[in-house]
Structure formats: structure tokens, C-alpha cells
């Protein structure tokens, strides 16, 4: 046994973990599923939803798997009757303050709360009492917030503060009246919000949804097409959600090597151009004051002729290549190669310089 290995047992199975492992990360290594609501791999462990509680050998109380570090010799049981009972109780409490109107919810079929109440066979009938009645917040172009559906998992708040570092939202209020909101409940606007939609991406319920996609289709109707963002050279991946040939929204690809599901406003919400009437789909050649549609052959032919003429008349130093940071490294390389070998000049640059 090396110094950096910790040996534990989970549901009777021996698991080797590292010093940094929590019970939750160890469970993933062991292929054991522990339910969570407030956990997102992109965020610091939180321990708020209490669904991931497990029994640890002889402890007085069950412990949250997401925040508890593993320790040598731990014996963990993830599915005892007692912990299942507490999970049920937690879900029942959540549903006691929830509209429980999945039929009309934007997120039906894509909601962890819905899945867990199905799995644990709990409905919202156990407790009666006050429910959150705050109105829907629709006061910005991209994000719809339905406070009645919020389970206070804090994922939106944490992603906005820990990952985006925008600090747009935090919890307001205390106790039952706690709610994630902007300072003084102002609308999300360009003054205070990046509109990156990271909060929407992490919300496990229908509380935060993409406004532009509302009513445009259910999760199961969407064909997900993995693509690379065309806005910059970082190379973020995401899934275009396509229904009936139309891109309805963008969802995060958590397994993307570059961005792990994170996106900025352009990648997440800048897809309108795809179906825009104003989108340029053929090359245009300027004649007089007018741009005339042309074929690619015509356009390339025209460019080659004009470059040759200019070089012949004024010399090779009068031309150059300027490429865009929306291009990939490979594309940028190709342009510089072309300019150096065909134009025979070193006049190459890129907009990323500025």
C-alpha cells in the first residue's frame, strides 16, 4: 500500500481511493450510484440536498457522501433501509414545496427531482402547508426563472460565483423564504449578468430554463448533434438540440474535453444566425455599389485574378493575409502557409493580436 492510497469498503466491495477522494468520487470509481441533487462535478461539494447521505461504519448519524473525505478503513453502505427512508423524507419535503405539475413543465423528462421521486416512489401528498408563490421572473432576454420550482440546491448560485465569477446571483432571505436572486431582485441585465446561461445548464429542475426554447419541444423529441462552437478558437463543444430540422437550443456537453459543459453567451445563446433570413449562404462579389451573388468558383477565380494583378503591378509586399481568431489553429496555419508560399510574403497577422 502506497502512502497515497486509502482503502475503503463500499457495500462490501473493496475500493482503492486517493487522498483527495470524497465518498461520492470514490463511489463513481466503484461504479456505485449515489443519488444527488446539489452536486455538479464542476462545483465545490456543497452538502445541501442531503440525498447523498450514506451510512459510515457505526457513525452516530449518516454522512453526506459529497463532502465527506474518505478515510482508511471506512465501511460505507449506500442503500440501507435507514438512509433510503431519510432520502424519501427529503424528497417528500421538497415536493411539499413544489408545484408538482410536471405535465406542463418545460423540463419534464429532463429533471432530476422528477427522476428521484419516481425512483423513491414519493409524491407531494405527505405534508400540507405553505408553498413558495413568487411570480415567474421573465425580465431578461434569455433566462426564465420559476421560483416555485426552485429546490434551493444552490447550483446556479455556485456556478455563477465559482465558475463564471460573475457574482450575479446569490441567496436572498433566510429559512423557508430563501431564494436565489440578483442583488435587490433586479432583473438580470447586461449590467449585472453575463447571460452565459451556466445557471440554466446546472439547474436540476425546471426552475431555470432557456427562454428562447420554451414551448419548442421536450427533451425526448430533440436530436442532439454534437458540434464545436464557431465563435472562437477555444474549441468548446456542445450539443445542438434539433427538432424537425430546426435548432431549438444548445445544451452542455459535460464530457467535452475543452470546456466540460461550460459555455459563454455566444456558444449557448448565439445560434439565431443558423436560421436567420439575413444569413449569407453564397459568396458575394461587389459590382459598383452592389453585392452580386456568385458561385464559389466565380469568387475564387476573381480573388486569384485580382491578387495576381496587384502583385504583378505593385509587388508582393503590397498584399498579405489577416485571419480570424474564430478560426482554428489549423486554419490559421493554412492561411499563413498560403501567404508565405503563394504570395511569397511574410505579411501575415491575426485579429487575436489586438
Amino acid at each position, binding site marked *: 500500500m502506497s502512502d497515497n492510497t486509502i482503502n475503503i469498503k463500499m457495500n462490501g466491495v473493496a475500493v482503492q481511493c486517493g487522498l483527495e477522494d470524497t465518498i461520492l468520487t470514490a463511489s463513481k470509481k466503484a461504479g456505485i450510484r449515489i443519488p444527488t441533487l446539489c452536486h455538479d462535478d464542476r462545483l465545490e461539494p456543497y452538502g445541501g440536498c442531503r440525498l447523498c447521505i450514506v451510512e459510515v461504519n457505526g457513525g452516530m448519524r449518516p454522512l453526506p457522501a459529497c463532502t465527506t473525505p474518505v478515510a482508511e478503513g471506512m465501511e460505507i453502505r449506500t442503500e440501507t433501509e435507514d438512509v433510503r427512508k*431519510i432520502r424519501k423524507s427529503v424528497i417528500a419535503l421538497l415536493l411539499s414545496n413544489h408545484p408538482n405539475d410536471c405535465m406542463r413543465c418545460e423540463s419534464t423528462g429532463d429533471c432530476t427531482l422528477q427522476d428521484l421521486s419516481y425512483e423513491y416512489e414519493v409524491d407531494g401528498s405527505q405534508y400540507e402547508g405553505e408553498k413558495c408563490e413568487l411570480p415567474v421572473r421573465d425580465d431578461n432576454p434569455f433566462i426564465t426563472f420559476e421560483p416555485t420550482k426552485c429546490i434551493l440546491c444552490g447550483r446556479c448560485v455556485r456556478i455563477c460565483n465559482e465558475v463564471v465569477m460573475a457574482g450575479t446571483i446569490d441567496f436572498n432571505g433566510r429559512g423557508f423564504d430563501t431564494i436565489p436572486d440578483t442583488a435587490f431582485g433586479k432583473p438580470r441585465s447586461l449590467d449585472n449578468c453575463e447571460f452565459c446561461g451556466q445557471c440554466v445548464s446546472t439547474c436540476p429542475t425546471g426552475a431555470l430554463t432557456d427562454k428562447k426554447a420554451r414551448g419548442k419541444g421536450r427533451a425526448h423529441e430533440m436530436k442532439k448533434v454534437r458540434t464545436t462552437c464557431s465563435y472562437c478558437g477555444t474549441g468548446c463543444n456542445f450539443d445542438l438540440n434539433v427538432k424537425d430540422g430546426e435548432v431549438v437550443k444548445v445544451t452542455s456537453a459535460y464530457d467535452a474535453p475543452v470546456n466540460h459543459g461550460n459555455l459563454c453567451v455566444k456558444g449557448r445563446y448565439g445560434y439565431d444566425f443558423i436560421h436567420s433570413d439575413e444569413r449569407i449562404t453564397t459568396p458575394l462579389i461587389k459590382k459598383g455599389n452592389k453585392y452580386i451573388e456568385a458561385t464559389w468558383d466565380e469568387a475564387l477565380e476573381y480573388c486569384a485574378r485580382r491578387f495576381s494583378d496587384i502583385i504583378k503591378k505593385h509587388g508582393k509586399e503590397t498584399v498579405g493575409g489577416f485571419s480570424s481568431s474564430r478560426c482554428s489553429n489549423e486554419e490559421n496555419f493554412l492561411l499563413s502557409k498560403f501567404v508565405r508560399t503563394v504570395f511569397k510574403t511574410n505579411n501575415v497577422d491575426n485579429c487575436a493580436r489586438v
Partner: protein
Amino acid sequence: MASKNNTDIKSLVIRVCVGTGGLAAGSQEVIDEFTKLLKKKGVRAEVLKKCVNKTGCRGFCAKDVLADVIVDGISHTYQLLTAENVARIVEEHIVGGEPVEQWLVGPEYHAFHDKQTKILLHECGHIDPEDINAYTEIGGYNGARKALTMKPENIIAQIKDSGLRGRGGAGFPTGLKWEFCRNADSDQKYIICNADEGDPGAFMDRSIIEGNPHSVIEGMIISGYAIGASFGYIYIRAEYPLAIERLKIALSEARSNGFLGKGIFNSDFDFELKIKEGAGAFICGEETALIASIEGKRGMPRSKPPFPAHKGLLGKPTVINNVETLATLPSIMTKGAKWFSSIGTEKSKGTKVFALTGKIKNTGLIEVPMGISLKEIIYDIGGGMEKKNRTLKAVQTGGPSGGCIPAANIDMPVDYESLAAAGSMMGSGGMVVMDDLTCMVDMSKFFLTFTANESCGKCVPCRVGTKRMLEILTRITEGKGKSSDIDLLLELGKDIKLASLCGLGQSAPNPVLSTLHYFRDEYEAHINEGICPAGVCKSLRRYTVSDEACKMCGKCKTVCPSDAVTWEKKQKAVISKEKCIKCGACYEACPFNAIL
């Protein structure tokens, strides 16, 4: 010497209590009046400054303003003073040599103090909290001075030997906590004084700081040196302006005396302290929430482990100790571990300060040795029930998340283990005495209202669970309880305790669970019979007119807003059950107490 017309001020000392309670009762006016009148008598200003002293709270706040007048070394204590009383005291007592008998404290003042053991509060009632010399003259800062000559390990060993346990609630052994922090490897460590004191009705920590702020600073120097922290914070709620003011004065005096700053007490140990004001959230008293608050974040607890002793403020090893814990340290350093551990029980050492309130004659702040019985506190110190014809029903200890102990158990000793075994806890030292007119369901509802409101909202069982429990209690007190409600409360209470993240949620159901344990019949009476046995729950009251007592005046009819009273001249009134909205207006209005 204090003969007629003799104003020999060398033999005169006047001590006036200037805690928040004293000031509210007018102690500043009393001081001003003494100063004014004595000046008139020709006492020089600098002598006056010495003979009229401010002191901190001495606990018996019900009798404020309290003042000692010490002539020729003979002390007389006056109670319930106002500025108007001062002239007569000056004339008759100070000048004339005859104390004003009718304003002197009575036997209950002495009874209140006799069974107490005052270690922490002793100086509070005697020295001027705004003068460092008053503290050093009675040996103040000798504990810190001594500690700085010792090896930190030996200080920790001494605190461990003393058996001191944290006074902030959980009762964790102080020496052990320090050892964890001392052994943690780090370039920077912190000591934090927890003066958030959020329990409703609690004012132990406030009184210590107001009465003897230097004892807390000295305690922090000792603990800071022991764990290897060169910096400390005092986290105190902004609602304690007087305590903050006195702390500021004390810090600057300590600094100019070389007790804070670089190389304190001429050693090579640097130590600095900073006050951090909290906005008064109960949850910010929880140590991890307190740390978040100091860091500028929303005060919400986080899971432990890691414990603050390993990863605390700004990720650095940190010890958080309660005010009372810290203020105890100087005397342990000077008098020794043995002395301290000789007080108290086997596992609970020393003394504990309680805020004694409720239906008891002598309310106030008391300090008692661990292991004293509840009975001694209530009947000897507290003077028994407030009203003669009432009987003791229960005592709530441990603040809003403590439990209640029924009258039958009052012979039990007050220590960490016994209170926990009885389903309650020591907590930070709240003690509420209840008489037979207290409804236990209503009482639980009161405490749960507090904890539900103060829940930080982070975790589901506490945030939603306490709310649901509160709703169930509310409907029981309104006569709408269901037969399944008791089981639901028990189940939910258990789940909240087990599954909540921090101490608030883990203990919030205690008042409900402990009253369900000891007073289940009261819950059942509410639910099954629609009766509140103590007559507290308004909705369950049935207003009826007593045929014998009714004098046919008709007052009740005139005040009833719901037209529920039928009355004609020369006829007895009758209240319609159907129309009555239970507002109680008739009950209040009847001059003959004929409405029951």
C-alpha cells in the same frame, strides 16, 4: 469618619452598574447625579473620578439600577435607584452616616448571590470596564504574562488537565481543540472569539464583555499563543453597541500597554486582534458560518470535516472559542488546573453562566458551579415562582434548540451529560422557567418559530422540515390537529435531526421532541379533546358566562365584535358558541370576571 457633615472622600467608593440593563434603567443619570452632588460638597474632580466607579453587570438586572455605596470600607447596596434618589443618599448616608434603609437591597439580593460561584462574573460587578488599570490592579493580564513564559504544549496540557469544555454549546474539550490546531501545519493560524450570542434572551457573553472586556482579550492572547496564532478576530453582533464600544476602548488600552502588537509583554510573540461586527443572524454563531461571514460571504455553514482546527478562516487552521470559554482562561493560568477542576462534576468542570428568565422571581444572570441542581437554581437563587399561587411545570435549557425538563426531574444536576441524558442540552446557557400556566405545545411552537426563521436555508430537512413541523404545531394550537400529527412530528423530528447539515437543524426539533416525551398528554388534549389544558391557546378557548358571577351589566355585549352575546336588561348574558370568534374582548371587558 463618616460622621455628620463629614465629607472625607478618601473613605468613599461608589460603584454603579453600567451594563446594558443598568444603562437602560438610568445608571448614567445616577452617576451624573452622584458626581454633581459630591462636587457641590467640595470633592475635587480627580478624586471624584476615583470614587464614583462604573462597573459591569452583576446579574440581578430585575433590580437595576444597583449601586454600592462604600463608606469607611462598609458597603451598602442600593437597588432600583433613579437619579431622584441620589440626593437623599448623599445627604443621609454619605454625609449623615445613616444608610437609607428603605432603598437597600433585601434578603433576595443576598439569596440570589449566595449559591453562586462567581469566577467570570466576579470582576464584572466590581471593576470599571473602561479602565485597564482597574483590571491590572486585581491581577489582570498576569495569566497571559505567565503563559508567555511557558511552552505552548504545556499551556495546552494545563488546559486539558483543567477539564475546561467549550461554553458555546457543544462542550468540546478546549485543550483538545487547541491541540488539533497546534499540530496542524501552516504558516498562519487564527483564533476567533465567538461573541455572536444569538439565542433569544441570552446575554451571558454580552455581560462579560461589557463588564470585563480585558478578560476576553487576555484569554485570546493565551489561546493565540498556545495554538501559534498571531492574529485573532472578535466576531460580535452589531446589536451589542455598548460591548463593542468597551471592546474598542479595551483593545486600544491593551495596545498602548504593550499587551497587543509586536513583541507583547516584551516577549518575541506578536499578537493583534480585530473586531468584526456581525449583522445579527443566529446562524452566524455556528462556527463555519461565522468563518464564512468573516470572509465576506453569506453566513452559511459547511460540512465538517474538515474541522476549522484544520481548515478554518481563509483555509488556515483556526480555533473558535466562546467568550465565556476565553474569559475563563486567565484564572486557570494563574490559579492552576487543579483549582479549576476541583469545581464541578467528574466530567463537567468549573462554573457556567446562565441567563435565568421566565416565571421566576429573581431573573438575571447567574454563575453556578457545574453539578448544582436545577432545584437550587430555581428555588434558592431564583427565589421560586414569580407568582405565589403558581407551580413549577418545566425548565427549558439550552436555548431555542434545547429541550425542556419537567418539574419532576429538578433534582438532577446541571452538567453536560445529565442535561443531554434528559433530552436537553447545556447550550450556551439559556434557562427559561415555566409555570403551570404554560402550554407546552405553544412553548415548542415559540422556539420552533425562532429556529425555522433563523435556518440559513441551505439544507432541505432544516429549511422545509422545520417549516412543516411549525405548521403542524400551529394547527394543533388552533384546534385543527389531526390524530396522525403526533406520529408525523416524531418521524419528521427524527429525520431532521439525523439529516440536517449543521447544529441548528440537528437540534431544532428538540423542544418539540422533549415536550412530546414528557407532556404528550397535552398534545393529545389539544388534538383529541380540543382543549388547551393550560388555557393558553386562544382558538381552543370556549368563552362561557358563569351564572353565579354574572351581574347582568351587559358590558360583554357592547364589546363583542361578532354579535355572539345575547343579553337583555336584568338578564344574564349568554355567548353563542357558533358566533364566537374567540377574540377574548368580553373576557377582558367583564368587570366581574364572570366570563370563563
